[in-house]
């Protein structure tokens, strides 16, 4: 224990390179980290994507050394030392230009390590955290997450509260919502409807009924939107719909189709977003177009974003920044547009970025924590692919952990098997399990609807459904 006092941490201003150099020594071994982004990468818990990118710490000792150094970095540094140049990247510009200096003032005297200790203290309560959200930059929050154990990520996230509204209220304490995801490999209307009915009768779909269309055909997107909307109106379901095609496709049809939420995959660098075929002004255009439809009844949170660690490296657009920090930067893009839902699709891509259940679980808890602290309505697609080293037991663990952490929503996929996207997510049953063991309820408006439809009783128990049930007609 006393060995701690043998390590010394010094930060020297490196005049030659014009930026800070970070160093410490452990048992006579000197560790030097040239810049903040290197420090962040080396301080990251092990994951395959950072190894692939050549950014991970070489040893566990080096990782701890980086964490020791990172703990002493003042939060202010993050405003001065950008990890991707301001001139080259519009996401950096967004982060810097929209940073709320007033909120930041409250924490501007802290180091990353002091922030960690404060976040865990009892004075960091829900309201204070909400007020501070705009004062945090993604990099600060990514940094602090790297110093946190899984239990810290859970305990702090549990204290956050991010509530959004469109036709219902998502994110209240004691609530757990689900995106109903009724995908079909040919976008067959009847097939999709069948999965939707199944989900609704299992109490799923309050966050959104969201279809990934197999094709990116605008015509098909219109049909799908009409179909969900008809159903929603017919049964007076207090929820919102979404077809997850490319934002340009939605923009093309937004005047002819009943568009509730606008979807887009986003990432943490301009260059990655470009590889997704988007940029901030396109998102702005879509956001405004959707707002102009005025379809929300109790609120105007209208965007649905998906993210996930690894996409930047995959697009050769990572600027040697570790994947978790880049993920947090994607949240800066998201929060610009007051989204209804932000979903980190954590195990979706594959083992090259998150190798196994352990890495997927860690990444999910980080993403959920970072998003929440930055003020986002985070949900998690608790998922894995068949080429990763993970299975249902890992997902059960993550599901339960995220429930305790207060995740806003999870996916509802029939039997956890997405037959179009080819991966395993959470089932309608999984959500019921989680609600039961943690005593959680769906969104209040949706809950009232479930009562009325005799799908659920006040104790949260599913009621037996007869074949004469309204939804089966």
């Amino acid at each position, binding site marked *: 224990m006393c060995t701690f006092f043998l390590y010394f941490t010094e930060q020297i201003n490196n005049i030659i390179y014009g930026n800070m150099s970070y160093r410490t020594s452990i048992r006579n071994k000197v560790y030097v980290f040239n810049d903040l982004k290197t420090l962040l990468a080396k301080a990251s818990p092990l994951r395959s994507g950072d190894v692939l990118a050549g950014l991970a710490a070489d040893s566990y000792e080096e990782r701890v050394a980086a964490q020791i150094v990172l703990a002493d970095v003042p939060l202010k540094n993050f405003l001065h030392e950008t990890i991707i140049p301001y001139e080259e990247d519009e996401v950096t510009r967004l982060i810097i230009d929209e940073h709320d200096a007033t909120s930041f003032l409250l924490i501007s005297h802290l180091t990353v390590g002091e922030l960690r200790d404060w976040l865990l203290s009892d004075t960091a309560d829900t309201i204070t955290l909400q007020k501070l959200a705009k004062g945090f930059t993604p990099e600060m929050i990514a940094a602090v997450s790297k110093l946190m154990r899984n239990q810290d990520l859970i305990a702090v996230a549990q204290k956050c509260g991010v509530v959004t509204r469109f036709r219902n209220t998502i994110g209240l304490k004691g609530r757990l919502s689900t995106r109903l995801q009724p995908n079909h490999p040919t976008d067959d209307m009847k097939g999709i409807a069948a999965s939707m009915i199944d989900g609704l*009768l299992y109490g799923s779909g309050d966050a959104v009924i969201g279809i990934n269309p197999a*094709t990116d055909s605008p*015509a098909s997107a219109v049909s799908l939107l009409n179909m969900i909307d008809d159903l929603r109106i017919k049964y007076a379901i207090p929820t919102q719909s979404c077809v997850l095609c490319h934002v340009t496709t939605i923009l093309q049809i937004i005047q002819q189709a009943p568009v509730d939420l606008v979807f887009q995959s986003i990432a943490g660098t301009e260059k990655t977003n470009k590889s997704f*075929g988007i940029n901030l002004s396109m998102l702005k255009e879509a956001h405004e177009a959707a707002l102009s439809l005025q379809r929300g009844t109790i609120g105007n949170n209208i965007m649905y974003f998906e993210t996930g660690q690894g996409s930047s490296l995959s697009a050769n657009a990572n600027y040697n920044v570790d994947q978790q920090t880049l993920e947090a930067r994607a949240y800066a893009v998201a929060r610009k547009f007051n989204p209804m839902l932000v979903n980190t699709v954590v195990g979706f891509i594959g083992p*090259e970025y998150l190798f196994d259940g352990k890495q997927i679980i860690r990444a999910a808890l980080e993403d959920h924590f970072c998003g929440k602290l930055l003020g986002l309505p985070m949900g998690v697609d608790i998922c894995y692919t068949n080429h990763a080293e993970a299975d249902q037991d890992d997902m059960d663990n993550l599901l339960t952990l995220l429930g305790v952490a207060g995740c806003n929503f999870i996916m509802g996929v029939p*039997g956890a098997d997405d037959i179009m996207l080819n991966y395993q997510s959470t089932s309608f049953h999984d959500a019921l399990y989680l609600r039961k063991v943690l005593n959680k309820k769906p969104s209040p408006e949706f809950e009232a609807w479930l009562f009325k439809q005799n799908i659920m009783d006040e104790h949260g128990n599913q009621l037996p459904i007869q074949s004469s049930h309204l939804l089966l007609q």
Partner: protein
Amino acid sequence: MLSNISKNSIQPDAWHSLKAFTAARIALGKTGTAIPLKEILDFKLAFAHARDAVYSLLDTQQLSTELEIFNLPVYSLQSNADSRPIYLQRPDLGRQLNNESKNKLQDSSNEQFDIVIILADGLSAEAVNKNVFSILQLLMPALQQYAIAPIVMVQNARVAIGDEIGSILKAKLSLIFIGERPGLSSSDSLGAYLTFNPTIGLTDESRNCISNIRPEGLQYDLATEKILYLIQESMRLQLSGVRLKDNAGSIEN
């Protein structure tokens, strides 16, 4: 009260008939909040098989024989990912031809082509083995107006390897058929990615994708229709990717 323990605790779902419309795991029934064991075991078995599919091999022998009818040279190439485990961990290597393959291709021709067709294992060689010939049978006759490059089969490959192949062969457009990652209900789903002016370093906004091609998914004739539409439009507009939309009319009509 205690004597009521029944052999069957499952509460079945009244909407079993909806299963006719989808392969999705709907109407599973439940016990408490849980999925019935029978369904869990079925899921696990599918999981075993999906995992095996990741390690399936491109049947280059069989494919070569089948491709003979198109009267085109056929190349069998390898990416820089030497093995399946490396392939899974190093997508970067799966996007590059290995040297031998590169040389083979460079030596092959000095012509220019309109379209190069590539068959890549991706995450499920099974998908290619099972589906690609059927679709090529429909597609090739419709491409007679174009100069078609030699057909390239490539192993341990990612989508973007089509950029390197297309540029070496000086093709205006590359069309790569590649095995999508295997799912529980379909370990043999084929994807097609189309890239105009394939060049090393392109990213995905420059491509179009036709996904879920298989008998239980997007059927061969409809897939062919879509691909043909996209090829025509791509050639006409001289681009591909997000600015090229699939307006071929939705599948349903």
